[in-house]
Structure formats: C-alpha cells, structure tokens
C-alpha cells in the first residue's frame, strides 16, 4: 500500500486516480499506523512552502516521516519535493525536512538576472510541458526514455542540490526536475498530470 500523506494541502484526486489507474493500492492518510504499515510514501503538496511546512508540522508526523524515509521509498511531488530540502526562501526563510541538501529559491530572480536587454524575460510560473533530461541512471527511470515531456507548475525551484539531481529541464536556468538520495525521491513536476510519461514514473516508484 502507498500512503499519501494527508496534511490538508492540495487536491489529491488526480494523484489517487492515477495510482488506482495503475492498479496500485493507495490511501490518503495522516494515521501513523497506516504510514508505518505502508510499503512506500508519497508526500504531495501545492501552495506556499511556509504554510505547508507548518501544516505538516501540526500533524506531528515529521519525525515519523524522517524515520520511515530510511526504511522505505518516499516520493515528494511538486511542493512536496521542495519540502525535502534544507531550506526555502519563499516569502521569508523556512526550514525544510532536510532529507536532501539544497535550497528552494525564486525562479524570477534568476530569470531576471539572465534576461538580455531588449528581450522579454521568461514568464513565471514555469507552467507547461518541458523536456525532462535524465542526468543519472536510476531505477525510478526504468520506464522512461531520454527527453520525454512532463508537466510543471511552479514559481520556486530547488537549487544547490546538483549532486542529488537525477534529471532536470531547461527554462533559462536548469530547473531541478528529479532529486534522489537513498530511498528519498522528489519530482518538481506533476507525474499525475504528465500523461503516460508520468504514469510510467509512478509505476517505477511502486516497484522500487
């Protein structure tokens, strides 16, 4: 069973539906017993980092998630991926779970710095289908080809985590697409909205 952590953030309809479509048993839950009993964990999330981290803290599940992340595969999706790193600079400074080294920073600042005079800077949020360039070989990519397209929606991105970056996409800067360290994985894009490509990534996660 896959435990999808329920901490009151985001719409989990598509994620649950995509796992069901793959024939995988999943449960949206905040129960420590269920999370412990699960054979893998998904940490979803949309919205602002500080708010989400506070909600997660309020569930009291953080120590359990950290402990479980050493024992079984964990996948953070979108904001859930950003929560995995050490720190975020989204509207202030917030500590993350620290499971993967790195910081979450605004895309806007880096894109403005890169913009050439007379040229319009790229739009933020980074929203739409972008090519996923696989950098390292990983079992999570068992069913993926190099250069498939995935669906992103975000305004902040994980930086300074190059060593743990498994795949990225180009949008002015190199946007961290997939991170991994031990059993802990994170994807910035939405596999549950990335068509067949996303389903194949979820399938591989379920087989890790």
């Amino acid at each position: 069973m896959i435990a999808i952590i329920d901490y009151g953030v985001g719409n989990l309809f598509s994620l649950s539906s995509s796992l069901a479509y793959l024939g995988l048993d999943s449960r949206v839950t905040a129960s420590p017993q269920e999370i412990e009993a699960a054979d893998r964990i998904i940490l979803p999330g949309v919205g602002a980092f500080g708010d989400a981290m506070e909600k997660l803290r309020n569930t009291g599940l953080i120590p359990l998630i950290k402990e479980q992340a050493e024992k079984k595969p964990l996948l953070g999706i979108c904001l859930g991926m950003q929560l995995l790193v050490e720190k975020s600079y989204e509207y202030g400074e917030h500590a993350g779970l620290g499971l993967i080294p790195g910081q979450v920073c605004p895309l806007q600042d880096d894109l403005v710095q890169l913009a050439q005079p007379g040229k319009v800077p790229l739009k933020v949020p980074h929203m739409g289908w972008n090519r996923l360039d696989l950098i390292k070989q990983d079992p999570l990519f068992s069913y993926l080809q190099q250069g498939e397209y995935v669906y992103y929606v975000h305004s902040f991105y994980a930086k300074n985590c190059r060593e743990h970056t498994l795949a990225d996409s180009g949008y002015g800067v190199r946007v961290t697409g997939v991170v991994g360290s031990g059993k802990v994985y994170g994807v910035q894009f939405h596999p549950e909205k990335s068509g067949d490509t996303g389903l194949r990534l979820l399938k591989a996660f379920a087989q890790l």
Partner: protein
Amino acid sequence: MITKRIIPCLDVKDGRVVKGTNFQSLRDMADPVEMARFYNQAGADELVFYDITASVEGRRLFTDILERVAREIFIPLTVGGGINTLEDFDRVLKCGADKVSVNSGAIRHPELIHQAAQKYGDQCVVLSMDIKRVDGKFHLFAKGGREDTGIDALEWARQGAAHGAGELVVNSIDTDGVKNGFDLELLDAVAEVAKVPIIASGGAGRMEDFAQLFTHPGVDAGLAASIFHTKQVEIGALKQYLQSQGVEMRLIKGAAENELKI
C-alpha cells in the same frame, strides 16, 4: 524549453459535446468521455471543458462527466462555464479539475479572481475573455459573447493578471468560427499588457494558422474546438507539422523513438 500547447475545447451541454459557430446554432457532436480519451491519445496537451448547461440537472451531469474523465485522463484539465463563486471553484476542483476558467462570473464579481487566486493559487485561475472590436476599440463581451459590457478589454486583461489570473484565454468574437486564422492583432495587444501565459482562441481553420500564431512569442497555446472535433485538423499531425516548422512540441511518439542516452 517549455513547449507551445495545443488545447481542444469541449463545450458540454446536458452531457454531450456541442460546438457552435459564432456562438449560435449549437450542433451535437459526441460523448465527452470518449472524446477526452481520443484527444489524450492524439497528444492534446490539455483539455478544456465548458459547461454551457443552465439547469441543475445538466450541472450534475457535467460534474459526473468531469470526474469520469479525471479518473482516466492524466493531463491538465481546465473547467469553465457557470463559475460565479468560490463554491463553484470548489465543486469542479473536487471532481478533478486542475484549473478553473472564469468569464462572466468575473465580470459580475471582479473580486472573484483575487479571492480564488488567494485560496487556490494563481495557477488555478484562468480568466477567459470574449473580445470584439467596437468602433476600433477592443470591448469585453459577456454572456457567451452576446452582450457588450463597454469595458476596455485590454484594461480588463491587465487587471485580471494583476489580481491573480494565472492564464488568460483570449477569444476573439470577430474571428471565431470564421476559420481564417487567429486574431493576431488582438493577441499581441493582450500580450503587451499582461505577462502571464496567453491561450489564443477563435479563428483556427488550418494547420498554417497555428504556425503563424506561434511566431508571436507572447502566445503560449492555441485552443480550438470544431476543427478538432470534425478532424478537419488532426492534433497529432498538427503537432508534427509545427515541430517541423521549428515550434517546440511535446511529441509522444517522437520521445519514445529516442535512444536512452545516459
């Protein structure tokens, strides 16, 4: 780099897909779930569902259909039609919509854009606008394009983006159903005032119209209905063609043919 998007739009009335020309004389086309499956396989980058039903019964049918689509189609789904309140946002988001498109509801209650953006995030709020030239100026129209509000459409677009609309759908009434190309003059004008993704709607008739559309860098996506429904333009072929014209596209088959180079 991010791809340009091709988006088929399904107008749903009483559980069936319909499409009118110049917003009148609706013609029944097909089953929305079947069509969603078809478009997903063909490589549509996103699907838009517009609920053009007025009745309570029709609305219930619509959310049932939406939920059925969201259980098996895993690409972004945008829903519009009859969105007037935050409760309407909630209703369709719970059934699997990713983005919610407001049009007349935002004209009646302009604060809705900001409220929804606060609650669900900018990326969730799509401002759809029906625009027509009146005495050489772009006017915003309401009620499915039947009523001139007298509002300056460019100012409306600018404010909408400023208040939290994450995307704008620009539908030109002047070119809608005419199939003689998108309203590039209007699209450029909107792109000038609003720095959010712009979805062009109204006027596509041929593949070349999309190629021309995407030479305008401010435009992010092309939306159409009847030309896709009638297969006058086939989405897979359209995307292949655009890629050959130098427009970056998400090609499902193309990706699978690539060697795994890592």
